[in-house]
């Protein structure tokens, strides 16, 4: 209504026509929405009438919705009474507390008469409500400290006796006094500590803590059913009296305090259910998983850290026997060469600018790529779930971030930026399982006597056929390749003649790689390139690459799937970060004589460094948990097992709950520091 009035006031009498049409449009829209809503409801109801499952679900949903909405509104209404009707509030609130206590005791079959009809169901809660409700009401009627203490303690004592008498014989605890003393002492200390932290007197907290400790020690540490009525009394009366006394020590709040309670209660009513949910659905399962991880496969006996130990001693999770193989692996050797280059360039840069390594100077490229290749070489030499997970983290995080950044920078402000970015972002919309299935087809190999249907192998085998063939297509490709090599050579020599060495780099790389490819293609060195093999009798047949079956490189081809999906994510975020860098900064740098690339490395990159940090950590967390891709493509076969899939296998296929839980905890612990770092970073920014 507010907006409508404003428009009427703004529009004035001069322009009635657009106003009317606008109102009509709004009306039409309203009718349409109402119609759609009614149609949906009628459709749902019809469906519910036809389908029994839908009906029962719908009824459940309606009941739950009405009940929770009712509870929530009732809670708000109840706390509305705090300011002016304190006595009513107190009576109702304590009455409810008593009723809940009654329901809890009865619902868990602890009190006499449990499980026998409707009446006992009502009696317990009613008695609880009456006792505590009266206490709540009476306490508002007296301000005298001594009287309050006596009333509350007395009620606590009475309630304790009542409960103890009502406890069924099967539940009377055989007391273990050591446990009682230990738990009472520990929890009293904790309670006192919390009180001191909250700047209250430690006595109150200690009393509540002691009461809880007594309950835990007396009931939790005992053999239920072994005890007598006396032991029941001891177990119940002490904490009940303690709690009553603690309540009796409070003063009746005055109006200002009540206003305070009223205000604070709203937040609790709002957040309470959410916290309860998180606690029940997240915190409790996490703690339980941690507990299960210390038990054996049937969750029966404690095995200490055996489950964790086995993760590190099992050769399926960690196998570094052949680590020396890394020194002979190709990526490692190339990495070492690149590091050498980095050292040389670094020395030169040190002479020129005083710093060997600096963001944006030529040392960084070979250094980073060299390190990456060396780690790659190391990963190919070692085997096991843990190694694979690390490998995933390094490769996927690096490539997703680097490619995302590259695309974001290169596309920034160019024509077709949106289209390009949309296409690259598209894989994000595909589920990991869907993407894995797509890529399984891409990687597919068929028997070489048939046509290849997987794109990669079709290309590879096709290339082999071209390279070893002698028909017209081979001739055409040879000529085109030769022209390309010559063109690259021309560019290179042009640049060299003009002494523009910076511009010579790309043509030089092109010349070398194209030239090498040409030499291989026409068979000057070797027999050709691509997927083919020549038998002893000279016949040429195709040869496929088993992308996802070849140990250990299968890992890499699975990572490609993840990179394909995640690059879009980092690109979009980095792109918006780059666009958020103030243009004044860049212009100022350019006026000071910075080149395009200097402006990027020295001005833009430091500005988006935090964003890169967030992306890297988010990726690490996501990749540590990788599951779907491995599950769908190889299911951990061919040396591609990762922690999450291993956890699933152990827990649900082999029913080794302890090991599964240990693996779950391991994933949790390895992700935890990164999560903490990430959250702190976000809070700092906020």
């Amino acid at each position, binding site marked *: 209504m507010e907006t409508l009035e404003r428009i009427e006031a703004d529009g004035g009498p001069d322009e009635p026509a657009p106003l009317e049409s606008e109102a009509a449009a709004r009306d039409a829209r309203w009718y349409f929405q109402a119609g759609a809503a009614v149609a949906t409801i009628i459709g749902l109801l019809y469906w519910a009438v036809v389908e029994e499952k839908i009906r029962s679900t719908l009824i459940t949903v309606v009941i739950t919705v009405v009940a929770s909405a009712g509870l*929530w509104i009732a809670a708000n209404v109840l706390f509305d009474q705090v300011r002016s009707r304190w006595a009513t509030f107190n009576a109702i609130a304590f009455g409810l507390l008593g009723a809940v206590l009654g329901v809890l005791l009865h619902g868990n079959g602890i009190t006499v008469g449990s499980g026998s009809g409707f009446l006992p169901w009502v009696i317990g809660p009613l008695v609880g409500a009456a006792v505590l409700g009266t206490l709540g009401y009476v306490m508002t009627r007296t301000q005298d400290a001594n009287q309050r203490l006596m009333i509350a303690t007395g009620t606590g004592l009475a309630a304790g006796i009542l409960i103890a008498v009502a406890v069924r014989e099967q539940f009377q605890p055989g007391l273990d006094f050591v446990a009682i003393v230990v738990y009472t002492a520990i929890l009293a200390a904790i309670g006192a500590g919390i009180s001191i932290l909250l700047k209250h007197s430690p006595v109150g907290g200690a009393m509540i803590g002691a009461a809880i400790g007594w309950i835990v020690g007396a009931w939790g540490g005992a053999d239920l059913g072994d005890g007598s009525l006396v032991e029941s009394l001891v177990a119940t009366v002490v904490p009940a009296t303690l709690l009553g006394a603690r309540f009796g020590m409070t003063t009746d709040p005055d109006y200002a305090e009540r206003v305070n309670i009223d205000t604070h209660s709203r937040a609790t009513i709002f957040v309470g259910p959410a916290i309860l*949910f998180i606690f029940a659905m997240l915190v409790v399962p996490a703690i339980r998983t941690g507990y299960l991880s210390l038990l054996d496969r049937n969750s029966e006996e404690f095995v200490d850290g055996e489950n964790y130990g086995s993760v590190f001693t099992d050769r399926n999770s960690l196998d570094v026997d052949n680590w020396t193989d890394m020194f002979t692996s190709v990526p490692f050797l190339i990495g070492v060469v690149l590091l050498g280059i980095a050292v040389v360039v670094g020395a030169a840069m040190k002479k020129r600018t005083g710093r060997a390594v600096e963001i944006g100077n030529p040392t960084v490229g070979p250094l980073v790529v060299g390190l990456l290749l060396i780690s790659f070489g190391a990963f190919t030499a070692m085997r096991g779930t843990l190694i694979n997970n690390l490998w995933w983290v390094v490769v996927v995080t690096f490539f997703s971030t680097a490619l995302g950044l590259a695309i974001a920078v290169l596309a920034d402000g160019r024509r077709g930026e949106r289209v390009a970015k949309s296409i690259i972002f598209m894989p994000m919309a595909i589920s990991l399982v869907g993407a894995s299935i797509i890529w399984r087809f891409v990687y597919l190999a068929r*028997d070489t006597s048939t046509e290849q249907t997987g794109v990669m192998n079709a290309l590879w085998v096709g290339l082999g056929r071209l390279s070893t063939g002698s028909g017209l297509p081979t001739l055409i490709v040879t000529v085109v390749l030769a022209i390309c090599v010559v063109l690259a050579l021309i560019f290179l020599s042009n640049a060299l003649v003009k002494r523009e060495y910076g511009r010579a780099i790309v043509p030089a790389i092109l010349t070398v790689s194209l030239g090498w490819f040409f030499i291989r293609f026409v068979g000057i060195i070797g027999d050709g390139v691509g997927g083919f093999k020549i038998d002893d009798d000279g016949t040429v047949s195709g040869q496929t690459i088993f992308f996802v079956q070849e140990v250990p490189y299968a890992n890499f081809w699975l990572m490609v799937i993840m990179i394909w999906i995640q690059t879009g994510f980092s690109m979009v975020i980095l792109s918006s970060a780059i666009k958020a860098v103030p243009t004044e900064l860049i212009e100022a740098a350019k006026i000071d004589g910075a080149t395009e690339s200097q402006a990027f490395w020295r001005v833009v990159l430091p500005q988006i460094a935090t964003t890169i940090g967030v992306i890297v950590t988010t990726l690490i967390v996501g990749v540590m948990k990788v599951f779907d891709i491995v599950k769908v493509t190889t299911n*951990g076969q*061919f040396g591609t097992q990762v922690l999450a899939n291993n956890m699933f296998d152990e827990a649900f*296929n082999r029913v080794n709950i302890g090991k599964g839980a240990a693996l779950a905890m391991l994933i949790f612990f390895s992700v935890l520091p990164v999560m903490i770092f990430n959250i702190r970073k976000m809070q700092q920014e906020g």
Partner: protein
Amino acid sequence: MTKRWLKLAAVPIALSFVAASCGSDDESGGGDTTPDTAAPAATDAPDDGGGGGDGDFGGATVTITGPERDDPSIASLNDVLGAFGEANNINIEYTGDADWEANINTQVQGGNPPNISYFPQPGKLADFARAGNLKPLTDEVNATVDEFWIDGFQLYGNVDGVQYGIPAKTDLKSLVWYQPQAFADAGYEVPTTFAEFTALIDTMAAADGPKPLCVGIESGQATGWTYTDWVEEMVLRLHGPDVYDQWVNHEIPFDDPQIQEAMQAPVDLWTEDNVFAAAGSIAATSFADNGQPLVDGQCYMHRQANFFAGLFPEGTVFADGSPEAVDVFYFPDINGDRPVLTAGIFAAAFDDDPATMAVMNYIATADYAEKRQAAQTEAVGGGLSGYLSAALGQDPNVYQPLEQSFLAILADAQIARFDGSDLMPADVGAGTFWSEGTSLVNGDVDVATAAERIEASWPG
């Protein structure tokens, strides 16, 4: 004021939707089973096993899960169980579950098991039975099982002397699929001994034609099981049933030289010259993708169980004498003792409500087998059903000629043993035996290493 209330009320409403959607599953699952115990006609209802029956269980619901989820199986199960349920006023719901192996664990641990489950692995059945999750058969059902099943098939439903499982489906594994016409054209004879079999493979490989064998062991989560079947066949053939039993029960270690010999045998046979692998490598080829190349004439033979009939391309004809017909021969033995490797599905109950046991009783009968075979034959459009039952007293006419030859091989067999990997603990039988076997076939490890690692993974 009222408006604010409405807006604020939206929050718990949204929350409760979440709660409701979380909670509703259990209600529909758990609530239905309670009336069973109260069914009045319950105790005297189970009939004599002649089928049909006319008990009244007051519309009690019996839920059944199982790994069979292909359309013909689901259709025939719904047909057969539906008809029985209708006659006895039981509401029977069958759910075919692709991820049965993982889900049954979750359901049992969550305290929400089905009433009955079909078990493809007796090992898992035994695990649940020992954990107290399964209920033993009642005396009536036991009598029915005795009436329709010989001991050899009952055996694997028996845990520590108590019968829990009912054989509900029989698979015969020791079969080699081939095209008689292709053999005739090339002048090959069906081998009757293992020596003849290997000699034939050598002859075929030397000739410039189709490869001798089609092999593929890829099967998603269960990749490697085809290889384990070969190993079991070889253990039975090389060393006999006693060693087989010792091996399965872990009375000899997995890396025993005899077992290693059997593990190596298929690998030696599966050379590049001998095998057509549709996806390039044996480890990458789906076990289901071996029917097409056999029909297309890219290989001569394929060793696989009887259910493989359903995995041949549509329109394939079986054992009818026509030129393109596909037939089977017995996977030849070495010592002349004609062992067969079998597998099968067992039904076991998670409760002993009268309605549940009435359904169990029916599953044990020949009537169930016959009706299911008929329904499944109809569901696949008149060809091979993919179903087979060794229940006694079935009308053989419900089976096609090829299926009758399966039954003939079963009847001829002097030694029958159940698929060993299904009997081993899941860590091995559905774990390392598959995965290390795959690595061995893929050439990543040698046989000694693979056997040693499998042995190390044997629990306990």
